[in-house]
């Protein structure tokens, strides 16, 4: 079968990164602190890329992404802690339930446009959070105790699957349909694209991987609490996508890595942490208003894409 050059480069790169990090962990060079940052980084990348398909590709401004992360986190935790299922089953269940939640939320809200859609998705995310806050079965406000079962392998596999699925979707007739909605919804409709269908599909795929990220997150921190998934978390994810450049998958990956590193480093200066973090954001937006990558992909910086732009 024909595979593009970019695909092979990505595969080799992924294997090398995995092998090197796994080697460092086995060799005892990376201690638990660094392993934790790496897992956190993987979770953030998954969240960023899963929001990228909704905002960057389909152009639907959703700011309730943390809600679907919460669904994934709680349902996977219920599966492993309450029902005693193995971790992979829990991760899968969390992702699937989050996708169903995305489908249910997406069908009514995606009729809305722009600001109205943003407000509606924010509202739904808060509803999801408040439901978990009030259900005693999952611990209510005190949270739910979850065993630490996530390893670097799970987190990295999650990232690779997320990127492959979303990038393959984008580079197909379906992804082109979704991008045409972002570019001009009326024209897309007139060209025979079922706009409602593709908006809901993109929203559901995005929710699926937000749920997977949430599920991995739940098994990394010993406890999950509803407050973790408030609207500030949604904004964090939004920042990755906007900072990376709307429409650029590699941009959102780079931004997620960059901001995870910055925020981990700044943990040493708790008093000034948020000030410096905000300054970094302001500086990037001042000097790169279209985000780090614009709409370009990192592959277009090399030989793969000839002219740049959103490469399909």
């Amino acid at each position, binding site marked *: 079968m024909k595979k593009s050059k970019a695909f092979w480069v990505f595969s080799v790169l992924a294997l090398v990164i995995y092998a090197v990090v796994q080697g460092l962990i086995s060799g005892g060079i990376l201690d638990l602190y660094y392993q934790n940052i790496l897992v956190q980084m993987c979770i953030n990348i998954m969240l960023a890329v899963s929001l990228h398909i909704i905002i960057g590709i389909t152009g639907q401004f959703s700011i309730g992404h943390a809600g679907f992360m919460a669904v994934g986190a709680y349902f996977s935790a219920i599966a492993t802690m309450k029902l005693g299922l193995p971790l992979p089953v829990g991760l899968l269940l969390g992702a699937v339930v989050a996708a169903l939640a995305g489908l249910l939320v997406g069908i009514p809200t995606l009729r809305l446009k722009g600001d109205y859609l943003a407000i509606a998705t924010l509202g739904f995310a808060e509803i999801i959070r408040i439901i978990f806050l009030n259900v005693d079965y999952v611990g209510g406000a005190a949270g739910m105790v979850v065993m630490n079962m996530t390893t670097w392998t799970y987190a990295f596999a999650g990232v690779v699957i997320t990127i492959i699925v979303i990038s393959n979707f984008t580079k197909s007739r379906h992804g082109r349909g979704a991008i*045409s909605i972002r570019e001009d919804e009326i024209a897309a409709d*007139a060209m025979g694209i079922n706009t409602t269908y593709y908006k809901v599909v993109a929203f559901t795929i995005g929710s699926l991987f937000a749920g997977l990220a949430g599920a991995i997150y739940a098994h990394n921190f010993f406890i999950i609490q509803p407050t973790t998934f408030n609207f500030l978390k949604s904004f964090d994810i939004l920042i990755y996508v906007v900072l990376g450049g709307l429409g650029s998958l590699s941009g959102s990956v780079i931004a997620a890595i960059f901001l995870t590193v910055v925020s981990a480093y700044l943990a040493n200066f708790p008093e000034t942490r948020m000030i410096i973090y905000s300054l970094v954001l302001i500086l990037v937006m001042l000097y790169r208003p279209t985000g780090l990558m614009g709409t370009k992909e990192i592959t277009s910086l090399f030989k793969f894409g000839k002219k740049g732009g959103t490469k*399909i």
Partner: protein
Amino acid sequence: MTSNLLIKAENVGIQFGGLKAVQNVNLYLNQGELVGLIGPNGAGKTTTFNMITGVYQPTFGTIAFDGKNLKGLKPYQVTKLGMSRTFQNIRLFKDLSVLDNVKVANHNIAKHSIISSILRLPSHFSGEAKMEQESIEFLKIFGLDVYKDELAKNLPYGMQRRLEIARALAAKPKLLLLDEPAAGMNPQETHDLMELIAFIRKEFNLTILLIEHDMHLVMGICERIYVLDHGQLIADGTPEEIRNNPKVIEAYLGEEVDD
């Protein structure tokens, strides 16, 4: 009328709040015709287009395309029945390449599913290859294949107009609706456009409905012309009849005053 009637719009009208933008329009298009729709600014030409293509649902009357009632159909469903259009203000997918613009309209010629694209099954590759090949064919007809990797927004204005027509054709229409295709073009470009329209009409066996302000173009290529004024049809007939119709002259130039 005979059975090769492609568009049958009867007593069509639309009301926005208290404003009747278009009323009592009867419009018939036969297979293979090239018909013009003219009228002063604000006469309701684009509104009529929008009702035919499903962007607006008419408040009164019925529109049938190829014998099927269009009531309640969304624009993408109307497009799938075999109708496609261009826009008065160019609506290209600006940040997509020229080739991808055409591929979007080619969406429905390939049938591979989302799952097959995500898993990169063989049907994905054959479907995408078919789309690529057909899209390049369309670009070649319009002389745009040399620009295929250029972003649509970087094309010169006249080329963008041509690309919009290429994109509309790629959706495989039986009926093509052109909304002011010559707007903003110089006489040479307008002339080329007339030849192009005549060519694609023959090549693709198209029926064309055309809104245009350039009278030279309308009178030059249309076989029949409908004239709208203040939301109502005031005349229809051959270019010669329209040119001499006192109502049309009045609508465009105002009433004649005796000295």
